[in-house]
């Protein structure tokens, strides 16, 4: 088992490295100048442009740029951001990471608690009116574009009712308020973006979990468990749900990167300063160091999600373990 774990980890690392190398060169093949947006609206002298190019080694040959990147990256230095006037990329990412982790983590928790519970609840009531209503609702929620839902929620709860803030992560005038007040304020600001993102993801998880659970509930061993006289709650919780978790585990692996990717649309609607908008900015400015920084983070999370899913399968399923 340890050998399998090491092998799988090695594969994940190789995948990550290959992905990053391809990304590094692909980014530079995309047309557009890294400094372009800075020179767009205000006339700038050739000296100023040359100075910027030298500063970020943009006039260096591509292999030199790659060698610089690798040499620095192995030491944990991702270079300096063009967009942020030479501030270290790690620092810029570190500033945004808590916001993304908070929103992504909340969405993930909501998704895999509410979504799973509703999916199971629906499955054991298959064919009832409640099941049909929930299926319809989840389908509608699944089809709603997040940014549209975000605007509608803002219009209702922030502009019309004034119950919740329309955007941002905190009320700036509360910076010196007691900790509890600030935590409450953060929670108020989190409600609308988290709900906006969760509605779609919960709907997806619900549907996955419902179908997986219905499949498992049809199997012989469940009939046997019931025939043994086990209480229905134990049949569902201990016997059926465990096996019905496998497809959801794959879904979890796919959703895990949201912890660091955020959502560009939702971050934009709610001015939530996460990594999604940072990555978009980096692309818009052709800020290669920052783009590589965010790419490393996102790629790592995607690879880690896949790795975690495989390990999860192995832990939960003895057949995988034996193979």
């Amino acid at each position, binding site marked *: 088992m340890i050998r399998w774990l090491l092998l799988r980890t090695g594969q994940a690392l190789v995948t990550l490295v290959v992905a990053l190398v391809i990304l590094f060169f692909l980014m530079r093949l995309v047309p557009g100048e890294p400094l372009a947006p800075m020179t767009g609206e*205000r*006339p700038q002298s050739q000296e100023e442009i040359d100075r910027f190019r030298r500063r970020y080694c943009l006039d260096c040959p591509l292999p030199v740029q790659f060698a610089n990147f690798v040499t620095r990256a192995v030491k944990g230095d991702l270079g300096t951001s063009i967009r*942020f006037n030479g501030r270290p990329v790690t620092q810029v990412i570190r500033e945004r990471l808590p916001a993304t982790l908070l929103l992504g983590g909340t969405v993930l928790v909501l998704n895999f608690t509410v979504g799973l519970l509703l999916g199971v609840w629906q499955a054991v009531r298959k064919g009832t009116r409640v099941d049909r209503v929930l299926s319809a609702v989840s389908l509608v929620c699944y089809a709603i574009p997040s940014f549209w839902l975000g605007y509608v929620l803002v219009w209702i709860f922030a502009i019309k009712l004034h119950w919740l803030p*329309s955007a941002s992560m905190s009320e700036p005038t509360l910076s010196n308020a007691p900790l509890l007040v600030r935590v409450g304020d953060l929670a108020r600001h989190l409600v609308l973006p988290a709900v906006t993102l969760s509605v779609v993801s919960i709907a997806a998880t619900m549907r996955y979990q419902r179908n997986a659970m219905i499949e498992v509930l049809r199997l012989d061993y469940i009939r046997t468990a019931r025939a043994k006289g086990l209480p229905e709650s134990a049949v569902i919780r201990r016997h059926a749900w465990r096996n019905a978790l496998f497809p959801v585990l794959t879904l979890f692996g796919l959703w895990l990167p949201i912890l660091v990717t955020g959502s560009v649309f939702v971050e934009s609607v709610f001015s939530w300063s996460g990594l999604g908008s*940072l990555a978009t900015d980096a692309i818009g400015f052709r800020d290669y160091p920052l783009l590589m920084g965010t790419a490393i983070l996102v790629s790592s999370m995607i690879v880690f999600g896949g790795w975690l899913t495989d390990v999860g399968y192995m832990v939960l399923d003895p057949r995988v373990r034996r193979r």
Partner: protein
Amino acid sequence: MLRSVLRITACAGLLVASVSGSACAQREGVNGVLVIATGADVSTPVPGVDQNQTNWQVTNLLFLRLAELGPTLSTVGDKDFVPMLARSWKRRDSVTVVFELDPRALWHDGTPVTSRDVVFTFERSHQIPDLATATQRIASVTADGPTRVVFRFRHGYAEQLYDATYHLMILPEHLLAGIPQDSIAASEFGKHPVGSGPFRWVRRVPDQVIELAAFDKFFLGKPKMDRIYFRVARAPDARLNLLLSGDADVTELLSWAAVQRLQGNQEFSIIPVTSPAITYALFNQKAPGDRTRPHPILSDARVRRALVLALDRPAMLRAVYGPYAVGNDGPVPQIFAWVEEPGHNAVRTDTAAARRLLADAGWTDHNGDGILDKDGMPLELTINSPNASPQRPMFAQQMQERWRQLGIKANVQLLDGPIWVQRRNAGQFDIDMSNAQLDPTPSGWRNSWSCATAGKPAQNVGSYCDPAIDSLLQAAYTSRDVVPVYRRILAHIREDAPAVFLSAPANVVAVHRRFATRPLRSDMIWLGLRDWSVTPGLQLPRDRARGN
């Protein structure tokens, strides 16, 4: 009653006496807190480090110049300037100006502002290429005692005071002397700047909020705005939502659609402010991608003039900006009103004349396909526009439609920002939808409309060159009466038609009605915040919030 009369009389007197005219407003209003919804974060609010708009605005609240442009924004002569760090100035001769610093001026850490700081700022400007260019006509800056600074210029000219003040926001030598220019962004000073302006730095939450506080010891009087918060919301809709939900008090750069959404709202005043921006469709004088050959169509001035005359620009700009823009016939933003000939009729539309000009240039529809042609070549042009701009694609599409009616085929290409600029800088375009934020002086025309910069990236990318304009720019360089020279330059540009000058839009600002505002300055919209106050009785709970 008598007290009221006395107060009004005193205020009137103060208004006359005070150049900024702020005293009355301060006396009438009460303290408050201002939340500004802004579109970009501040990266490094230190002069000369980053030019983004919010950075520029915050920098202007933290740091001071020796003097500020007056209400007319005229850059010519000395009389329109308003004292700031320098309480007075006088001329020794035609090339020497002596500034007397206000001895009450302090840095936010309590250290007095001295003449050494001014000298240091001038020396530091040499390390920033654009600033070095802007101040190249200043030969030297020397300290003559702790509060006296002597500026010597290379020759006599009309904009000496402008050059000495506008480009140089004074920096603290005692805090910056050991920090190289390229390291400021990463330094402690870059994160917690110390200026001498009416507001001091408090904190920044990245991409969320920037907090400034009134500087208690500001030598011109503590501002009534106790706190200023810049709330960052990149999406224009998110900024508008912050306003409508009561989470922000002010925002600027409102689109016509946003203004229409706000118009029924009684809580906000809509204020159009004259702006330094212009929008224009630039004609490439050289073949796309090959600056050694003339453009096969657009190098002919008759064609360019026809393209300009064919457009109903007043109707176009109404569709894009509503009532919040004026037509301009030249690189003339609203702030250059003092340059324009009084009574100049800005924009002319004449499709018949346009047809005639095209026919004179040999463009007729020989093959009957509805598109004009000449020597077998169709009159077909590509318009490059950045897709992120809300206005420019709208203009491009209107141009396409109006030119189509004349038999001109125009293809609109909406491009990602960096690709658009790359093509623009490389001269790979027929027509480029351009936008520029101009400095207050028309002498900046040198960057975009002179032979000296023709074909240079980020400058005169359309390769427009008229030696007569270069001669006139040179004349303006040394002249003491520059306005007539600028007007002659404009006449040349109008005749040559190097671009379709589409509009000089206003900066439309929404302000919560509880604020008693001063007139907003066009190029630095929040510069006058130190004179703002809240109308008594209209304070919100957040106006009473106090921080550190």
